[in-house]
Protein backbone atom coordinates (compact mmCIF):
# COMPACT_ATOMS: atom_id res chain seq x y z
CA UNK A 1 0.00 0.00 0.00
CA UNK A 2 2.64 2.51 1.03
CA UNK A 3 4.47 1.36 -2.04
CA UNK A 4 1.96 3.19 -4.24
CA UNK A 5 2.58 6.45 -2.40
CA UNK A 6 6.32 6.03 -2.56
CA UNK A 7 6.06 5.52 -6.29
CA UNK A 8 3.81 8.55 -6.72
CA UNK A 9 6.28 10.59 -4.73
CA UNK A 10 9.47 9.59 -6.47
CA UNK A 11 7.95 9.82 -9.93
CA UNK A 12 7.80 13.59 -9.80
CA UNK A 13 11.03 13.96 -7.88
CA UNK A 14 13.28 11.56 -9.76
CA UNK A 15 11.98 9.56 -12.66
CA UNK A 16 9.92 12.24 -14.35
CA UNK A 17 11.36 15.35 -12.72
CA UNK A 18 9.53 17.85 -14.92
CA UNK A 19 12.28 20.34 -15.69
CA UNK A 20 15.04 17.93 -16.60
CA UNK A 21 13.09 14.99 -17.99
CA UNK A 22 9.93 16.41 -19.52
CA UNK A 23 11.13 19.95 -20.21
CA UNK A 24 7.99 21.50 -18.77
CA UNK A 25 7.62 24.76 -16.88
CA UNK A 26 10.93 26.19 -17.98
CA UNK A 27 10.10 29.90 -18.21
CA UNK A 28 10.28 30.64 -14.47
CA UNK A 29 13.25 28.32 -14.04
CA UNK A 30 15.28 30.33 -16.52
CA UNK A 31 13.96 33.71 -15.49
CA UNK A 32 14.23 33.83 -11.72
CA UNK A 33 17.34 31.78 -11.01
CA UNK A 34 19.77 34.70 -10.95
CA UNK A 35 19.70 34.38 -7.16
CA UNK A 36 19.09 31.37 -4.94
CA UNK A 37 16.55 33.25 -2.81
CA UNK A 38 14.48 34.03 -5.91
CA UNK A 39 14.66 30.40 -7.00
CA UNK A 40 13.54 29.02 -3.64
CA UNK A 41 10.75 31.61 -3.38
CA UNK A 42 9.49 30.74 -6.85
CA UNK A 43 9.72 27.01 -6.09
CA UNK A 44 7.76 27.33 -2.85
CA UNK A 45 5.08 29.49 -4.46
CA UNK A 46 4.59 27.06 -7.35
CA UNK A 47 4.63 24.05 -5.02
CA UNK A 48 1.98 25.60 -2.78
CA UNK A 49 -0.23 26.17 -5.81
CA UNK A 50 0.46 22.69 -7.16
CA UNK A 51 -0.39 20.92 -3.89
CA UNK A 52 -3.53 22.96 -3.25
CA UNK A 53 -4.84 22.62 -6.79
CA UNK A 54 -4.06 18.90 -6.83
CA UNK A 55 -5.99 18.46 -3.59
CA UNK A 56 -9.03 20.45 -4.65
CA UNK A 57 -9.17 18.99 -8.14
CA UNK A 58 -8.95 15.41 -6.97
CA UNK A 59 -11.53 16.04 -4.21
CA UNK A 60 -13.97 17.55 -6.70
CA UNK A 61 -13.03 15.34 -9.65
CA UNK A 62 -16.47 13.71 -9.80
CA UNK A 63 -18.26 17.03 -9.99
CA UNK A 64 -16.34 18.43 -12.97
CA UNK A 65 -18.18 17.58 -16.22
CA UNK A 66 -15.75 15.89 -18.59
CA UNK A 67 -16.34 18.35 -21.47
CA UNK A 68 -15.42 21.45 -19.47
CA UNK A 69 -12.91 19.93 -17.08
CA UNK A 70 -9.96 21.93 -18.46
CA UNK A 71 -11.60 25.34 -17.87
CA UNK A 72 -12.58 24.10 -14.40
CA UNK A 73 -8.98 23.11 -13.66
CA UNK A 74 -7.76 26.47 -14.92
CA UNK A 75 -10.13 28.39 -12.66
CA UNK A 76 -9.06 26.36 -9.63
CA UNK A 77 -5.39 26.89 -10.40
CA UNK A 78 -5.83 30.60 -11.16
CA UNK A 79 -7.67 31.06 -7.87
CA UNK A 80 -4.78 29.62 -5.88
CA UNK A 81 -2.24 31.59 -7.89
CA UNK A 82 -4.08 34.82 -7.17
CA UNK A 83 -4.15 33.97 -3.46
CA UNK A 84 -0.41 33.26 -3.44
CA UNK A 85 0.16 36.47 -5.40
CA UNK A 86 -1.77 38.58 -2.87
CA UNK A 87 -0.18 36.97 0.16
CA UNK A 88 3.32 37.36 -1.24
CA UNK A 89 2.67 41.02 -1.94
CA UNK A 90 1.51 41.45 1.64
CA UNK A 91 4.13 39.45 3.51
CA UNK A 92 7.29 39.15 1.38
CA UNK A 93 7.20 42.37 -0.68
CA UNK A 94 10.88 42.37 -1.64
CA UNK A 95 10.73 38.87 -3.09
CA UNK A 96 7.39 39.70 -4.74
CA UNK A 97 8.98 42.64 -6.55
CA UNK A 98 11.89 40.56 -7.78
CA UNK A 99 9.77 37.70 -9.11
CA UNK A 100 7.42 40.17 -10.80
CA UNK A 101 5.25 38.83 -13.58
CA UNK A 102 6.41 35.27 -13.06
CA UNK A 103 4.12 34.84 -10.04
CA UNK A 104 0.87 35.30 -12.02
CA UNK A 105 2.41 33.19 -14.76
CA UNK A 106 2.41 30.16 -12.43
CA UNK A 107 -1.13 29.74 -13.83
CA UNK A 108 0.23 28.67 -17.19
CA UNK A 109 3.06 26.59 -15.79
CA UNK A 110 2.58 23.37 -17.76
CA UNK A 111 3.57 21.25 -14.76
CA UNK A 112 0.54 22.27 -12.73
CA UNK A 113 -2.10 21.89 -15.42
CA UNK A 114 -0.28 18.76 -16.57
CA UNK A 115 -0.51 17.14 -13.13
CA UNK A 116 -4.18 18.14 -12.86
CA UNK A 117 -5.06 16.59 -16.21
CA UNK A 118 -2.81 13.53 -16.02
CA UNK A 119 -3.08 12.67 -12.35
CA UNK A 120 -5.23 14.58 -9.90
CA UNK A 121 -8.31 14.60 -12.12
CA UNK A 122 -8.49 10.79 -11.94
CA UNK A 123 -7.00 9.74 -8.62
CA UNK A 124 -7.94 9.88 -4.92
CA UNK A 125 -7.04 12.79 -2.71
CA UNK A 126 -4.16 11.34 -0.75
CA UNK A 127 -2.32 10.07 -3.79
CA UNK A 128 -2.79 13.44 -5.50
CA UNK A 129 -1.32 15.14 -2.46
CA UNK A 130 1.75 12.92 -2.54
CA UNK A 131 2.06 13.45 -6.29
CA UNK A 132 1.88 17.22 -5.80
CA UNK A 133 4.55 17.07 -3.11
CA UNK A 134 6.86 15.00 -5.31
CA UNK A 135 6.49 17.19 -8.37
CA UNK A 136 6.76 20.35 -6.32
CA UNK A 137 9.96 19.15 -4.69
CA UNK A 138 11.30 18.16 -8.10
CA UNK A 139 10.60 21.69 -9.33
CA UNK A 140 12.33 23.21 -6.29
CA UNK A 141 15.35 20.95 -6.72
CA UNK A 142 15.72 22.02 -10.34
CA UNK A 143 15.44 25.69 -9.38
CA UNK A 144 17.98 25.34 -6.58
CA UNK A 145 20.53 23.53 -8.74
CA UNK A 146 20.33 26.07 -11.56
CA UNK A 147 20.27 29.03 -9.16
CA UNK A 148 23.32 27.73 -7.30
CA UNK A 149 25.29 27.45 -10.52
CA UNK A 150 24.21 30.85 -11.80
CA UNK A 151 24.58 32.77 -8.58
CA UNK A 152 27.96 31.40 -7.56
CA UNK A 153 29.47 32.01 -10.98
CA UNK A 154 27.45 35.03 -12.07
CA UNK A 155 27.51 37.02 -8.84
CA UNK A 156 30.04 35.25 -6.63
CA UNK A 157 27.53 35.10 -3.79
CA UNK A 158 24.95 32.80 -2.25
CA UNK A 159 21.58 34.00 -0.96
CA UNK A 160 21.95 37.47 -2.51
CA UNK A 161 21.15 40.09 -3.59
CA UNK A 162 20.12 41.41 -0.16
CA UNK A 163 23.48 42.37 1.40
CA UNK A 164 22.29 41.19 4.82
CA UNK A 165 21.94 37.57 3.81
CA UNK A 166 24.41 37.39 0.94
CA UNK A 167 27.52 35.31 1.50
CA UNK A 168 30.47 36.34 -0.67
CA UNK A 169 32.09 33.09 -1.65
CA UNK A 170 35.36 34.17 -3.20
CA UNK A 171 36.10 37.37 -1.32
CA UNK A 172 36.05 40.86 -2.72
CA UNK A 173 38.57 40.30 -5.49
CA UNK A 174 36.35 37.97 -7.47
CA UNK A 175 35.17 39.43 -10.75
CA UNK A 176 31.84 37.71 -11.43
CA UNK A 177 31.36 36.00 -14.77
CA UNK A 178 28.43 38.19 -15.65
CA UNK A 179 27.17 36.16 -18.55
CA UNK A 180 25.67 33.67 -16.10
CA UNK A 181 23.53 36.37 -14.54
CA UNK A 182 22.28 37.44 -17.99
CA UNK A 183 19.72 35.66 -20.19
CA UNK A 184 22.28 33.83 -22.40
CA UNK A 185 23.88 32.30 -19.32
CA UNK A 186 20.54 30.96 -18.16
CA UNK A 187 20.02 29.08 -21.41
CA UNK A 188 23.56 27.76 -21.56
CA UNK A 189 23.67 26.71 -17.90
CA UNK A 190 20.35 24.87 -18.18
CA UNK A 191 21.47 23.22 -21.43
CA UNK A 192 24.67 21.94 -19.84
CA UNK A 193 22.84 20.80 -16.71
CA UNK A 194 20.38 18.95 -18.89
CA UNK A 195 23.25 17.17 -20.61
CA UNK A 196 24.69 16.22 -17.23
CA UNK A 197 21.36 14.92 -15.98
CA UNK A 198 20.96 12.89 -19.17
CA UNK A 199 24.36 11.38 -18.60
CA UNK A 200 23.75 10.53 -14.93
CA UNK A 201 20.34 9.01 -15.64
CA UNK A 202 21.81 6.92 -18.40
CA UNK A 203 24.65 5.71 -16.19
CA UNK A 204 22.28 4.83 -13.36
CA UNK A 205 19.88 3.29 -15.83
CA UNK A 206 16.83 5.23 -14.64
CA UNK A 207 14.14 5.28 -17.25
Amino acid at each position, binding site marked *: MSNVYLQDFQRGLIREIPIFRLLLGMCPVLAVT*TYLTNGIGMGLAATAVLICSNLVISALRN*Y*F*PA*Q*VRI*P*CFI*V*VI*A*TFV*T*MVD*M*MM*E*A*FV*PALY*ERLGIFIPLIVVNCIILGRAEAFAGKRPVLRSLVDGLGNGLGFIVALIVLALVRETI*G*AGTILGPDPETAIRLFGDNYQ*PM*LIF*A*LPPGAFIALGLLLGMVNYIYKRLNIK
Partner: protein
Amino acid sequence: MREIIRLALTLFMIGLTSAALLTGVNNWTGPIIEERRKSDYLETIASYFPDVESFETKAEENGDSFDLIYDSAGNLLGVMGTILQGGYGGVITYNLAVDTEGIILGLRIISHSETPGIGDVITRESFLAQFIGKSHEDPLQPGEDVDLVSGATESTGSIIGSVRRSVGHIATSYLDFQAEIFDITVVPDGTFQGVAAGGQGDIVVEVVVEGGRLVEIKVLEQKETPTMFVLSYPIIPERMIAEQKLEVDVSTGATASAEGIVNAVRNALEKAIEEGEGEQR
Protein backbone atom coordinates in the same frame (compact mmCIF):
# COMPACT_ATOMS: atom_id res chain seq x y z
CA MET B 1 -29.67 21.70 -24.60
CA ARG B 2 -30.12 20.65 -21.02
CA GLU B 3 -26.55 19.35 -21.07
CA ILE B 4 -25.20 22.73 -22.12
CA ILE B 5 -27.12 24.47 -19.37
CA ARG B 6 -25.73 22.02 -16.83
CA LEU B 7 -22.16 22.64 -18.06
CA ALA B 8 -22.58 26.38 -18.04
CA LEU B 9 -24.08 26.26 -14.56
CA THR B 10 -21.19 24.18 -13.18
CA LEU B 11 -18.63 26.54 -14.65
CA PHE B 12 -20.54 29.51 -13.35
CA MET B 13 -20.68 28.03 -9.85
CA ILE B 14 -16.95 27.36 -9.85
CA GLY B 15 -16.25 30.88 -11.07
CA LEU B 16 -18.49 32.32 -8.40
CA THR B 17 -16.83 30.32 -5.62
CA SER B 18 -13.44 31.43 -6.90
CA ALA B 19 -14.47 35.08 -6.99
CA ALA B 20 -15.93 34.86 -3.49
CA LEU B 21 -12.78 33.24 -2.11
CA LEU B 22 -10.53 35.80 -3.76
CA THR B 23 -12.64 38.67 -2.49
CA GLY B 24 -12.14 37.30 1.00
CA VAL B 25 -8.38 37.02 0.62
CA ASN B 26 -8.21 40.45 -0.98
CA ASN B 27 -10.11 42.02 1.90
CA TRP B 28 -7.58 40.46 4.23
CA THR B 29 -4.34 41.26 2.38
CA GLY B 30 -5.42 44.51 0.72
CA PRO B 31 -5.26 46.65 3.89
CA ILE B 32 -1.95 45.03 4.88
CA ILE B 33 -0.42 45.90 1.50
CA GLU B 34 -1.78 49.43 1.65
CA GLU B 35 -0.52 49.89 5.21
CA ARG B 36 2.95 48.59 4.35
CA ARG B 37 3.24 50.86 1.31
CA LYS B 38 2.34 53.87 3.40
CA SER B 39 4.70 53.04 6.23
CA ASP B 40 7.52 52.24 3.78
CA TYR B 41 7.02 55.60 2.15
CA LEU B 42 6.92 57.45 5.44
CA GLU B 43 10.05 55.62 6.54
CA THR B 44 11.88 56.75 3.41
CA ILE B 45 10.85 60.34 4.03
CA ALA B 46 11.78 60.08 7.70
CA SER B 47 15.23 58.74 6.85
CA TYR B 48 15.99 62.07 5.16
CA PHE B 49 13.78 64.37 7.23
CA PRO B 50 13.61 62.96 10.80
CA ASP B 51 11.27 65.74 11.94
CA VAL B 52 8.63 65.05 9.31
CA GLU B 53 5.09 65.58 10.48
CA SER B 54 3.11 65.86 7.26
CA PHE B 55 3.68 66.13 3.56
CA GLU B 56 1.90 67.41 0.52
CA THR B 57 2.26 65.63 -2.81
CA LYS B 58 2.46 67.50 -6.10
CA ALA B 59 2.15 65.24 -9.12
CA GLU B 60 3.50 66.49 -12.42
CA GLU B 61 2.40 65.68 -15.93
CA ASN B 62 5.48 63.69 -16.90
CA GLY B 63 4.87 61.16 -14.11
CA ASP B 64 7.27 62.63 -11.56
CA SER B 65 5.87 63.65 -8.20
CA PHE B 66 7.27 65.89 -5.51
CA ASP B 67 6.44 65.85 -1.82
CA LEU B 68 6.77 69.04 0.19
CA ILE B 69 7.80 67.93 3.68
CA TYR B 70 6.67 69.90 6.75
CA ASP B 71 7.53 69.55 10.44
CA SER B 72 5.03 69.78 13.29
CA ALA B 73 5.26 73.61 13.34
CA GLY B 74 4.38 73.71 9.66
CA ASN B 75 7.84 74.76 8.49
CA LEU B 76 9.03 73.44 5.14
CA LEU B 77 11.88 70.97 5.72
CA GLY B 78 12.59 70.15 2.12
CA VAL B 79 11.31 68.28 -0.89
CA MET B 80 11.41 64.62 -1.82
CA GLY B 81 10.88 63.78 -5.45
CA THR B 82 9.85 60.43 -6.91
CA ILE B 83 11.38 60.67 -10.35
CA LEU B 84 11.20 58.52 -13.48
CA GLN B 85 14.20 58.46 -15.79
CA GLY B 86 14.89 56.36 -18.88
CA GLY B 87 18.03 54.28 -18.41
CA TYR B 88 19.80 51.71 -20.55
CA GLY B 89 17.36 48.84 -20.09
CA GLY B 90 14.18 50.65 -19.14
CA VAL B 91 12.75 53.16 -16.72
CA ILE B 92 14.63 53.91 -13.50
CA THR B 93 12.51 55.18 -10.61
CA TYR B 94 14.24 56.91 -7.74
CA ASN B 95 13.68 59.17 -4.73
CA LEU B 96 15.65 62.37 -4.41
CA ALA B 97 15.62 64.33 -1.17
CA VAL B 98 16.61 68.02 -1.20
CA ASP B 99 16.61 70.38 1.80
CA THR B 100 15.40 73.98 1.75
CA GLU B 101 18.88 75.24 0.81
CA GLY B 102 18.72 73.22 -2.39
CA ILE B 103 21.29 70.72 -1.14
CA ILE B 104 20.91 67.01 -1.87
CA LEU B 105 20.33 64.93 1.26
CA GLY B 106 20.35 61.61 -0.51
CA LEU B 107 18.87 59.47 -3.22
CA ARG B 108 17.60 55.95 -3.42
CA ILE B 109 16.83 53.80 -6.44
CA ILE B 110 13.35 52.29 -6.13
CA SER B 111 13.23 50.19 -9.25
CA HIS B 112 15.23 49.75 -12.42
CA SER B 113 15.79 47.23 -15.20
CA GLU B 114 19.45 47.87 -15.92
CA THR B 115 21.68 44.94 -16.83
CA PRO B 116 22.44 42.94 -13.68
CA GLY B 117 26.09 43.19 -12.70
CA ILE B 118 26.76 46.12 -15.04
CA GLY B 119 24.15 48.86 -15.05
CA ASP B 120 22.96 48.04 -11.56
CA VAL B 121 25.98 49.83 -10.09
CA ILE B 122 23.52 52.73 -9.89
CA THR B 123 22.06 51.06 -6.80
CA ARG B 124 25.45 50.95 -5.04
CA GLU B 125 25.96 53.11 -2.01
CA SER B 126 29.39 54.27 -3.28
CA PHE B 127 27.82 55.69 -6.44
CA LEU B 128 24.80 57.27 -4.80
CA ALA B 129 26.79 58.80 -1.91
CA GLN B 130 28.63 61.07 -4.35
CA PHE B 131 25.53 63.20 -4.76
CA ILE B 132 25.03 63.92 -1.07
CA GLY B 133 25.91 67.50 -0.18
CA LYS B 134 25.85 68.73 -3.78
CA SER B 135 23.59 71.69 -4.37
CA HIS B 136 21.36 72.90 -7.17
CA GLU B 137 24.09 75.38 -8.15
CA ASP B 138 26.72 72.68 -8.67
CA PRO B 139 27.30 71.81 -12.29
CA LEU B 140 27.13 68.03 -11.57
CA GLN B 141 29.03 67.16 -14.71
CA PRO B 142 29.43 63.42 -15.32
CA GLY B 143 33.06 62.36 -15.05
CA GLU B 144 34.08 65.57 -13.27
CA ASP B 145 31.88 66.16 -10.24
CA VAL B 146 30.37 62.70 -10.16
CA ASP B 147 32.11 59.54 -11.36
CA LEU B 148 30.75 57.75 -14.38
CA VAL B 149 31.26 54.03 -13.89
CA SER B 150 33.14 52.65 -16.85
CA GLY B 151 31.14 50.00 -18.67
CA ALA B 152 27.93 51.51 -17.35
CA THR B 153 28.21 55.06 -18.67
CA GLU B 154 24.69 55.00 -20.06
CA SER B 155 23.06 53.96 -16.77
CA THR B 156 25.17 56.20 -14.53
CA GLY B 157 25.12 59.11 -16.97
CA SER B 158 21.34 59.09 -17.21
CA ILE B 159 21.02 59.21 -13.41
CA ILE B 160 23.55 62.04 -13.11
CA GLY B 161 21.76 64.08 -15.75
CA SER B 162 18.38 63.41 -14.21
CA VAL B 163 19.56 64.39 -10.72
CA ARG B 164 21.03 67.63 -12.09
CA ARG B 165 17.77 68.57 -13.81
CA SER B 166 15.59 67.48 -10.91
CA VAL B 167 17.54 69.41 -8.27
CA GLY B 168 17.32 72.48 -10.48
CA HIS B 169 13.61 71.88 -10.97
CA ILE B 170 12.97 71.44 -7.25
CA ALA B 171 14.98 74.56 -6.45
CA THR B 172 13.17 76.79 -8.90
CA SER B 173 9.65 75.33 -8.70
CA TYR B 174 9.29 74.41 -5.05
CA LEU B 175 11.99 76.28 -3.10
CA ASP B 176 11.64 79.75 -4.65
CA PHE B 177 15.16 79.99 -5.95
CA GLN B 178 15.29 82.25 -8.97
CA ALA B 179 16.50 80.53 -12.07
CA GLU B 180 19.43 82.44 -13.46
CA ILE B 181 18.27 83.89 -16.75
CA PHE B 182 20.84 84.56 -19.40
CA ASP B 183 20.50 88.11 -20.68
CA ILE B 184 20.66 87.90 -24.46
CA THR B 185 20.23 91.66 -25.00
CA VAL B 186 23.78 92.39 -23.86
CA VAL B 187 25.28 90.17 -26.55
CA PRO B 188 26.85 92.21 -29.38
CA ASP B 189 25.71 91.54 -32.97
CA GLY B 190 27.61 88.94 -34.90
CA THR B 191 28.10 85.25 -35.56
CA PHE B 192 29.63 83.20 -32.76
CA GLN B 193 30.72 79.61 -32.26
CA GLY B 194 30.42 77.63 -29.04
CA VAL B 195 31.17 74.11 -27.81
CA ALA B 196 29.66 71.90 -25.10
CA ALA B 197 29.45 68.21 -24.29
CA GLY B 198 26.41 66.35 -25.62
CA GLY B 199 25.51 62.76 -24.99
CA GLN B 200 28.32 61.28 -27.10
CA GLY B 201 30.95 63.98 -27.44
CA ASP B 202 31.24 67.65 -28.19
CA ILE B 203 28.53 69.61 -29.99
CA VAL B 204 29.69 72.71 -31.91
CA VAL B 205 27.13 75.38 -32.72
CA GLU B 206 27.06 78.64 -34.61
CA VAL B 207 24.80 81.38 -33.29
CA VAL B 208 23.75 84.54 -35.12
CA VAL B 209 22.71 87.48 -32.93
CA GLU B 210 21.20 90.69 -34.28
CA GLY B 211 20.04 93.57 -32.12
CA GLY B 212 20.15 91.52 -28.93
CA ARG B 213 18.00 88.77 -30.40
CA LEU B 214 18.77 85.19 -31.34
CA VAL B 215 18.30 84.94 -35.09
CA GLU B 216 19.80 81.65 -36.10
CA ILE B 217 21.30 78.60 -34.38
CA LYS B 218 23.08 75.95 -36.44
CA VAL B 219 24.80 72.78 -35.25
CA LEU B 220 28.11 72.47 -37.08
CA GLU B 221 29.50 69.31 -35.53
CA GLN B 222 28.09 66.52 -33.38
CA LYS B 223 28.64 62.83 -32.73
CA GLU B 224 25.23 62.02 -31.22
CA THR B 225 23.32 58.84 -31.96
CA PRO B 226 21.38 59.81 -35.12
CA THR B 227 18.04 58.43 -33.92
CA MET B 228 18.39 60.37 -30.70
CA PHE B 229 19.73 63.56 -32.20
CA VAL B 230 16.71 64.10 -34.45
CA LEU B 231 14.59 64.32 -31.31
CA SER B 232 16.32 67.52 -30.19
CA TYR B 233 17.44 69.10 -33.43
CA PRO B 234 16.12 71.37 -34.85
CA ILE B 235 13.39 71.49 -32.15
CA ILE B 236 15.59 72.95 -29.41
CA PRO B 237 17.10 75.80 -31.51
CA GLU B 238 13.60 76.62 -32.75
CA ARG B 239 12.35 76.80 -29.17
CA MET B 240 15.22 79.05 -28.14
CA ILE B 241 14.62 81.42 -31.04
CA ALA B 242 10.86 81.46 -30.51
CA GLU B 243 11.12 82.13 -26.78
CA GLN B 244 14.27 84.30 -27.07
CA LYS B 245 15.89 82.64 -24.07
CA LEU B 246 18.27 79.81 -23.29
CA GLU B 247 16.26 78.29 -20.43
CA VAL B 248 13.86 76.30 -22.61
CA ASP B 249 12.23 72.97 -21.82
CA VAL B 250 14.83 70.34 -22.70
CA SER B 251 12.72 67.24 -22.11
CA THR B 252 12.71 65.84 -25.64
CA GLY B 253 13.46 62.16 -25.21
CA ALA B 254 17.11 62.93 -25.98
CA THR B 255 17.81 65.23 -23.08
CA ALA B 256 21.58 64.86 -23.19
CA SER B 257 21.73 66.16 -26.76
CA ALA B 258 19.23 68.91 -26.02
CA GLU B 259 21.20 70.10 -23.02
CA GLY B 260 24.38 69.90 -25.07
CA ILE B 261 22.93 72.23 -27.69
CA VAL B 262 21.71 74.71 -25.06
CA ASN B 263 25.06 74.67 -23.29
CA ALA B 264 26.94 75.14 -26.55
CA VAL B 265 24.80 78.18 -27.37
CA ARG B 266 25.40 79.54 -23.88
CA ASN B 267 29.12 78.97 -24.38
CA ALA B 268 29.04 80.87 -27.68
CA LEU B 269 27.16 83.83 -26.19
CA GLU B 270 29.40 84.00 -23.11
CA LYS B 271 32.46 84.10 -25.33
CA ALA B 272 30.81 86.77 -27.45
CA ILE B 273 30.19 88.98 -24.41
CA GLU B 274 33.76 88.55 -23.19
CA GLU B 275 35.22 89.39 -26.58
CA GLY B 276 32.87 92.34 -26.98
CA GLU B 277 34.01 93.80 -23.68
CA GLY B 278 37.62 93.25 -24.70
CA GLU B 279 37.12 95.26 -27.88
CA GLN B 280 35.51 98.15 -26.07
CA ARG B 281 38.50 98.44 -23.84
